[in-house]
């Protein structure tokens, strides 16, 4: 028997211009593009889905019908789960993650074979996923939108990363990183948190005096504090990586990028933790955020004992920002898929909660056909309502802080 050689994946070479007339060359493999594709199923009116239960195995399966072509497909329960994600907002890579979280196994063959099956039955379209990018692309004749698109594109291209970071994290862990995952570290963390909280309460009582230390440069000070915060995000990600080492998993990548082309951030690829226990996943998610709790508490303690002036105001503001970041990272209801969100969806077993909830609520707002009330519907509504209220509260709190500091 002769082995059929596996054809190499096709690549294209692209030249991307920068604003200063220089350019960079990027080779993009078809496989890299494939995992970022967001499959979009046909409109709801164009398909029907019915559940059938096997009389032999008593396991549910589903019949999917294309109303236009009258073609039928039989879907298993995991395939139906994937079908539900194909609303154009979830990339295949994210679907694979959701699949692992739900079924606890890496059976990724199921995804390409399902995509092929659906395409054959003409149940998928191939539209670009990002609505914002579609709108920008459609309106390139407007200079402002063209500039916005170019800026987003340029920022998205900025990615400084390395895939050979495992030895670095191993060394960091063995040189003392392991101490972070001891009971003593947990106790210190709790104590610091309590001390920081007490310091924060005392500082709040003299907030006016402390804020006066900025001397009329509140906005500049807040911006510089946020820049300082950016550097601490690197520590946050380092601790995530150390948690992976602690649980014997591999750190695949560490780097810096602009999330969605807007938010500067450091990141670490922790996908290998999906192979570990739920406890490991929770510890990995939470440990990174504790960096902000510790730093916030320390800044508050520094501010408490610092003499009045700019430095004291700066320390207090840094403490507030760090604690805000701690809360945002751990608080799951803010439309941002951060550490707390991942813990929540892991616990609920609903890995695509945000996109499902947004799709559900958008349907309600558009006046789409009423969806029968269910626990899932309640969860979706609860998630969107809580997140909306939380974001509004967060914005109001920051506006209040800035006004307070300026007055």
């Amino acid at each position, binding site marked *: 028997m002769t082995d059929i050689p596996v054809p190499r994946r096709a690549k294209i070479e*692209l*030249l*991307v211009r920068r604003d200063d007339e220089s350019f960079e060359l990027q080779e993009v493999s078809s496989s890299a593009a494939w995992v970022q594709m967001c499959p979009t199923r046909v409109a709801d009116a164009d398909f029907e889905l019915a559940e059938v239960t096997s009389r032999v195995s008593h396991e549910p399966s589903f019949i999917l019908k294309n109303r236009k072509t009258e073609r039928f497909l039989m879907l298993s329960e995991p395939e139906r789960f994937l079908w539900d994600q194909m609303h154009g907002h979830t990339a295949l890579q994210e679907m694979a993650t959701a699949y692992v979280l739900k079924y606890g196994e890496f059976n990724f063959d199921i995804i390409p074979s399902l995509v092929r099956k659906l395409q054959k039955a003409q149940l998928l379209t191939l539209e670009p996923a990002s609505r914002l990018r579609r709108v920008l692309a459609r309106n390139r004749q407007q200079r402002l939108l063209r500039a916005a698109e170019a800026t987003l594109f340029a920022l998205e291209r900025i990615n400084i990363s390395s895939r050979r970071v495992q030895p670095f994290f191993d060394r960091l862990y063995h040189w003392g990183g392991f101490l972070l995952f001891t009971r003593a570290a947990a106790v210190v963390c709790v104590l610091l948190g309590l001390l920081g909280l007490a310091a924060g309460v005392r500082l709040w009582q003299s907030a006016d005096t402390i804020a006066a230390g900025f001397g009329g440069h509140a906005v500049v000070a807040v911006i510089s504090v946020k820049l300082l915060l950016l550097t601490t995000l690197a520590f946050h990600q380092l601790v995530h990586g150390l948690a992976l080492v602690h649980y014997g998993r591999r750190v695949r990548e560490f780097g810096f990028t602009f999330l969605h082309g807007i938010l500067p951030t450091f990141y670490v690829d922790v996908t290998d933790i999906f192979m570990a226990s739920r406890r490991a996943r929770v510890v990995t998610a939470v440990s990174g955020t504790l960096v902000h709790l510790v730093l916030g508490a320390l800044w508050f303690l520094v501010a408490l004992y610092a003499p009045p002036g700019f430095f004291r105001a700066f320390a207090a503001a840094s403490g507030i920002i760090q604690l805000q970041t701690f809360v945002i990272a751990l608080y799951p209801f803010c439309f941002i898929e951060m550490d707390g969100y991942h813990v929540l969806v892991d616990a609920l077993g609903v890995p695509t909660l945000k996109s499902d909830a947004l799709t559900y609520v958008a349907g309600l707002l558009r006046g789409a056909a009423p969806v029968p009330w269910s626990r899932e519907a309640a969860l979706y509504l609860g998630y969107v309502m809580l997140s909306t209220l939380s974001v509004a509260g967060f914005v109001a709190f920051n506006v209040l802080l800035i006004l307070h500091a300026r007055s």
Partner: protein
Amino acid sequence: MVSKAADTADFIKTVRLFREFNDPELLALTGRLRERKLRKGQVLFREGDEGEEMFLVREGAILVSKAVTGKVEQVLARFGPGDFFGEMSLFDRSPRSATIQAETDAMLLALDRDNLNGLIQVNPRAAAAFFHGLVQVFIERLRTSSELVAEITRWGLEATGLDMESR
């Protein structure tokens, strides 16, 4: 000066279009060429520009790209010493079909339309050799383009997961 002209003539002899040229013809051609230096990253001309010259690459590497979307262009080809480009606009007077930029510092020799016409009119034998070489290179580039189209189609099919065999 003579030495420089001789060097240039030796180089031109390596260019496929001029391999059949004899020494007097090469020397005559040398006088019609103009040196053009490019810094790394510098654009020589852009897709859509008017074109009056073709270029021989004497030193460095040249990138040929075509606009795809926004600031993204697809790299179509690379040229190195002994290669030539830009001849299409000389003959069909159409705007440039692609953008040319230097991937490294580069030195080019430019031949404009008037000088090419002069060469053709004065020396029919050299002109015939030139066009024979040109046709051979065009055939090669056509084949390369067909392969590129196939490669890009394959990329699109793989990137979208489209399975045409079982449709």
